[in-house]
């Protein structure tokens, strides 16, 4: 849950940032382009004729005159952001907004600041239904996103991206195009994604101390895993003389795939199809004929169900898994009742790290995912988008917005010779805020240890300032590039004491050793993560029948795993699923897929 709160905060922040106006650099971009493909010069006519005052080789100098005002909205309860502002500064007025005004000619204004995410949703919905003026740049809550596009209130962004966006950002949008279906309509993009790092893919956590105690090797295949589960269940790994341990901690209340303790790795070991019963929007796999098919009704799901059923009937899985959510299941593992749990790399710290409080010897370690009988192994890709930033269709300053966004993006990218990379941000964003220049040395935290005198500390209490909230005033999204922490992880795995150079490296270095090791395990097995190919909006039938089908699938899976229904019941389920709207949804999904991949 903590992670979700964090995520929500980040998303909000990201939204705020995304509303900044862009500078005047675009026309020069166009000229370059035209020069490059001089065969087709007639598209030049679209150019509005204004000449850029900015050298294309120094896009970071973009400044808008007359100044551009960008309005936005944000959720900020003032408490959860911690050390984001110095006394006297606020979301509306701080060193960064002043800097933007003076150096970029961008004024940031807030149409509204609310303290709760629900209020934000309500506010947007009210503006939508009352026909009020939307902020220039804002993050759209999931529900309202489709309504906003349907109502024609938001701007299609393709032209603006083409003209103003950082070239690397364009590449990312292309690369992760498959994840943007929700904000696409008729081939046009209506929202900019905030990306997740995408580093939460499943690894296998096992109590190494239990393995050692029972003289077992870490399992490499499903069969070996079954043996380990058997031994953990029957051979008293905690040595207390009682039969009170089980093998696998798994939450089944929401079906086989969730945010922690998920069993996607087991599915992937058995079949090329990915299964999810939690949400009708996922998992849609690509079949051999190129059509999308719904994972949970694939015949291969039976292999998964059979295995889970066996484990359940042998007691390797907690009998109560069916009523457990991820938190509850992880409690069992953290309490020393279960020895294996699948999940993201951060689980080693929390919640599995808590196992050591119960038993000081407890040692959960991350291992490669087991392979199936055909040598298959894999996992599901975690969603990589964290909400979308949208632009009021009447907004005129999108160039200015991109100018600011590109600057933050370029800093995150940290490439040599990048014309968008602002040299003024070389050491950090604002001196005396996120860094201190002390005797020629840049200090970014631990000021006391570095000997910085107290009067130069950014905050009186000596803590680090959390710059995200300040910097994100209008970009709404983070500038995270999916999977961009890979190199940093490898670097610190090779040399834990290496000096961090970029902000990504700072973040990675700050993660606990166990998490870093698990990230290494995740990266090194060489897994191509299974993608969910349907990322569009809910189809009409999904809307009317989706919940029914989700319920049907979850219920059926559990009944089969619990042995309440025979395996043959699966075929009945597939028929029911199709008859109750599933086949119609499949058609709609494939129509969407064909449309969006034209």
């Amino acid at each position, binding site marked *: 849950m903590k992670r979700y709160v964090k995520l929500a905060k980040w998303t909000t922040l990201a939204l705020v940032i995304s509303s900044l106006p862009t500078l005047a650099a675009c026309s020069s971009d166009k000229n370059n382009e035209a020069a490059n493909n001089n065969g087709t010069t007639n598209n030049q006519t679209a150019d509005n004729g204004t000449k850029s005052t900015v050298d294309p080789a120094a896009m970071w100098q973009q400044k808008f005159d007359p100044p551009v005002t960008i309005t936005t909205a944000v959720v900020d309860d003032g408490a959860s952001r911690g050390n984001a502002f110095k006394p006297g500064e606020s979301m509306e007025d701080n060193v960064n907004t002043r800097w933007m005004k003076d150096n970029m000619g961008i004024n940031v204004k807030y149409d509204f600041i609310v303290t709760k995410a629900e209020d934000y949703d309500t506010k947007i919905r009210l503006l*939508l239904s009352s026909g009020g003026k939307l902020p220039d740049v804002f993050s759209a809550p999931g529900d309202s996103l489709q309504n906003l596009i349907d109502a024609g209130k938001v701007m299609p962004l393709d032209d603006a991206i083409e003209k103003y966006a950082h070239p690397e950002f364009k590449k990312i949008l292309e690369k992760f195009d498959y994840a943007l279906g929700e904000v696409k309509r008729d081939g046009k993009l209506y929202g900019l994604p905030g990306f997740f790092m995408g580093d939460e893919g499943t690894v296998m956590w096992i109590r190494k101390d239990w393995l050692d105690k029972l003289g077992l090797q870490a399992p490499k295949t499903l069969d070996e895993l079954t043996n380990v589960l058997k031994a953990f269940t029957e051979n008293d790994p905690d040595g207390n003389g009682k039969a009170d341990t089980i093998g696998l901690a798994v939450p089944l209340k929401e079906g086989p795939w969730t945010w922690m303790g998920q069993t996607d790795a087991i599915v992937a070991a058995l079949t090329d199809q990915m299964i999810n019963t939690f949400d009708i929007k996922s998992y849609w796999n690509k079949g051999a004929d190129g059509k999308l098919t719904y994972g949970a009704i694939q015949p291969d799901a039976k292999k998964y169900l059979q295995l889970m059923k066996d484990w359940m009937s042998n007691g390797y899985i907690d009998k*109560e898994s069916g009523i457990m959510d991820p938190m509850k299941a992880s409690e069992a593992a953290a309490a020393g009742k279960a020895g294996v749990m699948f999940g993201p790399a951060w689980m080693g710290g929390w919640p599995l790290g808590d196992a050591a409080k119960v038993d000081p010897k407890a040692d959960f370690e991350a291992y490669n995912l087991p392979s199936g009988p055909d040598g298959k192994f894999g996992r599901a890709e975690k969603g990589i988008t964290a909400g979308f930033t949208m632009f009021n269709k009447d907004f005129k300053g999108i160039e200015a917005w991109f100018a600011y966004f590109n600057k933050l993006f370029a800093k995150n990218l940290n490439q040599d010779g990048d014309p968008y990379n602002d040299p003024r941000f070389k050491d950090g964003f604002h001196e005396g805020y996120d860094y201190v220049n002390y005797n020629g040395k840049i200090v970014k935290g631990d000021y006391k240890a570095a000997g910085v005198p107290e009067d130069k500390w950014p905050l009186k209490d000596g803590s680090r300032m959390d710059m995200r909230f300040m910097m994100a005033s209008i970009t709404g999204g983070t500038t995270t590039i999916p999977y961009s922490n890979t190199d940093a992880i490898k670097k610190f795995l090779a040399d834990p004491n290496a000096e961090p150079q970029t902000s990504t490296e700072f973040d990675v270095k700050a993660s606990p050793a166990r998490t870093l090791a698990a990230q290494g395990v995740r990266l090194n097995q060489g897994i191509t993560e299974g993608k969910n190919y349907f990322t569009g909006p809910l189809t009409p039938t*999904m809307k009317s029948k*989706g919940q029914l089908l989700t*319920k049907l699938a979850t219920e059926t899976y559990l009944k089969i795993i619990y042995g309440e229904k025979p395996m043959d019941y699966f075929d009945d389920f597939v028929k029911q699923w199709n008859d109750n709207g599933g086949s119609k949804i499949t058609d709609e999904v494939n129509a969407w897929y064909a449309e969006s991949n034209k």
Partner: protein
Amino acid sequence: MASYWRKTWPFHLLLLPALVLVIIFAYIPLFGAAIAFEDYQPWLGIKGSPWVGFEHFRTIFEYPDSKQVIINTLIIASLKLVFNLVIPVIFALLLNEVVNTYFKRVVQTLVYLPHFLSWVILGGILIDLLSTEGGIVNRFLNVLGMKSIFFLGDGQWFRFTVIVSDIWKEFGFSAIIFLATLVGIDPSLYEAAEIDGATRWQQVVNITLPLILPIVIVVATLSLGRVLDGGQDQILNLYNPLVYSHGDILDTFVYREGLMSGKFSFGTAVGLFKSAVGFIMILISYRLAYKLANYRIF
């Protein structure tokens, strides 16, 4: 008339705030119920959304799950209704017989405490208490030589658990009103009965029960209005896919359908359906109360 107003105007003034609140929060929102007859789309608003008539009400009965959901609701709600009436009355009668006031107060306080805990909290506690591995209830059963029962994962037991836990949470609080009535009974009636040689039991049957019957009927009448309320909070916190077939009620169904998949109109339609049934039930029971116990509010 003029003198009536002169005397009573301060009381009418006192009534005013409540009246305003009721109009704002109870009557004005009624217009929102219109979306039950529309294909409501937020950006078009109530005025702009297309009308679909009784489409959503038809869906309620055509939905493959609806029958099961309505049956579940009726079973769970009516059992709760009956037991939540009978048990507090019995409890109040028993407590009334206790002579030691100190003991009486302690017991009363203890039994109505759970009423103030939310189902979110109680749900978590119950899941632990009823766990098949190490839950205190099943441990006790094991000591008695019985097998563990999967209270929350077995359909039949789930209903039982839901009803019993609801009674446990509410009976103490519901008993307050009956206790208050019992205190109000004229002691001279009992004294007279004692002189006539009536036993304790005879006193209960011939004095206490007839005198609290009207209030029992009022409480029953009022709760009939909620006959389709199975207890959304409670079930949402306790149920899981293993017991959907026995535990899914209208409220949880609406929660999943209406909120999770954003079908506002459909959710409203179910809500309206529930209210209509509740209204009819109140009308009927009020008539009955008038006929049987000569009880009337107006």
